[in-house]
């Protein structure tokens, strides 16, 4: 199969216009009974527009995702109706966990094409309290091939487990490495105001937890949560009239290797497929892994960020487990990772919170002391990488964000 050869210069040309994130917002996360899916989206819209210092009338583009609770084939325009707005550009993106960075790319392209100037990217759902039991089964089976995988009782957790066990086998990665990802992120979540799980756990706590599907204990798995998050994409010129220091999108990239886990050819094929997203985003941004100050890496399971770190070139193949065990991913380490706790400790909203957290880090505002959390700011953070993966590491989208404008291509 031929590898796509997208034009890096053309991506740089678009981003050289100064495509920025000018506002972010997130609601409480967890079990938020009594708040519907669209209500949560409306709440976070208000928080995000307040952050940017603009009103709803100034938003002319709306990019949303999907809902596990509210079934609609026209999610973005359903939200536009609910919010009472008439966007000139609208799109609903649905590529599972890859959706959030793809929403940012969609917004950037709409701005570049002249379809909109101020694009709200918003995702939220009452997945935890609103989902029906048949919806839960559908979600558990979602990534299985209905004809050739589902009859064997595959769960999404076990699908990741199949890949993780082969990865651990090929590279001699110990169970402790997975547990170390959880322990590291639990220390970060303790400082994040809206993290669902605020109590730090040790490697031993994770190792002693109950099994769900090998090699994953319950604590290795991501959370199911209600909540919403959003980010506002516009131009640097337009952001001058807004309240916050803009954060620049300086790199974009995508990568794919398979849809069904049975179709994944090899561990290295998956690593290269998802790695292409991060490597290309860094190439477009003109940075290397050594230039990164903070990494908000999709963490559907404790294993997930390990193979991504390797795919992006932060670590060599099979080396990410030791890298995390040595403390490199901690606040104060070589490359602090998932400084908000991630999907494993904060909440699960795809990669939305990863983008929000990366933006806050680059604004120098990752200190939640005033809201009952703590200081998790990476000192002087200037360049961040963030990604999301849909399916079982099937499709990945990555962004490089920077506190500075892209250097002239």
């Amino acid at each position: 199969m031929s590898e796509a050869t997208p034009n890096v210069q053309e991506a740089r040309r678009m981003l050289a216009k100064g495509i920025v994130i000018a506002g972010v917002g997130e609601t409480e996360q967890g079990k938020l009974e009594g708040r519907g899916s669209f209500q949560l989206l409306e709440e976070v819209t208000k928080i995000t527009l307040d952050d940017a210092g603009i009103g709803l009338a100034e938003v002319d583009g709306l990019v949303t995702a999907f809902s596990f609770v509210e079934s609609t084939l026209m999610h973005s325009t359903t939200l536009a109706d609910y919010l009472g707005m008439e966007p000139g550009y609208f799109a609903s993106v649905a590529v599972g966990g890859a959706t959030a960075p793809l929403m940012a790319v969609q917004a950037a392209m709409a701005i570049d094409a002249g379809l909109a100037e101020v694009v709200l990217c918003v995702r939220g759902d009452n997945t935890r309290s609103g989902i029906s039991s048949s919806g839960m089964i559908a979600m558990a089976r979602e990534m299985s091939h209905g004809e050739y995988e589902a009859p064997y009782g595959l769960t999404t957790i076990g699908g990741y487990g199949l890949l993780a066990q082969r990865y651990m086998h090929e590279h001699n990665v110990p169970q402790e490495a997975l547990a170390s990802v959880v322990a590291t992120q639990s220390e970060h979540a303790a400082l994040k105001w809206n993290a669902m799980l605020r109590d730090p756990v040790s490697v031993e706590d994770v190792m002693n937890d109950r099994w769900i599907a090998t090699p994953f204990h319950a604590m290795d798995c991501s959370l199911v949560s209600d909540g919403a998050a959003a980010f506002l994409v516009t131009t640097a010129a337009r952001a001058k009239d807004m309240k916050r220091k803009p954060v620049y999108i300086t790199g974009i990239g995508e990568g794919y290797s398979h849809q069904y886990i049975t179709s994944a050819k090899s561990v290295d094929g998956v690593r290269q497929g998802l790695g292409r997203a991060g490597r290309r985003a860094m190439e477009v941004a003109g940075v290397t892994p050594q230039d990164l100050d903070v990494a908000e890496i999709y963490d559907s399971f404790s294993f997930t960020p390990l193979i991504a770190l390797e795919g992006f070139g932060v670590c060599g193949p099979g080396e990410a487990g030791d890298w995390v065990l040595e403390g490199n991913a901690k606040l104060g380490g070589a490359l602090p990772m998932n400084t908000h706790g991630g999907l494993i400790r904060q909440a699960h909203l795809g990669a939305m919170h990863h983008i929000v957290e990366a933006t806050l880090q680059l604004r120098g505002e990752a200190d939640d002391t005033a809201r009952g959390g703590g200081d998790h700011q990476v000192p002087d953070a200037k360049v961040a990488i963030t990604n999301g993966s849909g399916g079982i590491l099937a499709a990945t989208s990555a962004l490089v964000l920077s506190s500075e404008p892209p250097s002239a291509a």
Partner: protein
Amino acid sequence: MSEQSTKPAYTKPLPDLRPEGATFWAGTKEHKLLLPAGPDGTPFWYPRAYAPGTLEPVQWVESAGTGEIYTYSVHFIGPSKAYKGDPPHVVALVDLDEGVRVMTNLVIDQAPDYPSIDPADVAIGKRVRVVFHDVTDEITLPKFALA
């Protein structure tokens, strides 16, 4: 009353049948493992209308039903209530000797129920062979036991 009527209803997931897979499922019902193959006879998985990457017509070849465990995950929780109370089941990817990878359950070769293998007996690289589990009158799932 026929013998089947005393059989407890099978409540676990059944395949979402599609026309492209009819030959495969007709094969398993006769306890044959048929694989779709491209124009040069190279098998691929899973059945499609045309051979993937070529858009050429499909032919069918019979598998010897032997291979090795590529990876596995011991599932302590299943995807539906039908798994409640069961011992853990082992989901595996098996590399068949014909060069395709299929998903399956690792079981003990013990008709008619083919109970799950003891997870302690499973390891990546172990040789396995197909067994045919008739789960309903219509559907036979190919599963694998240690060779």
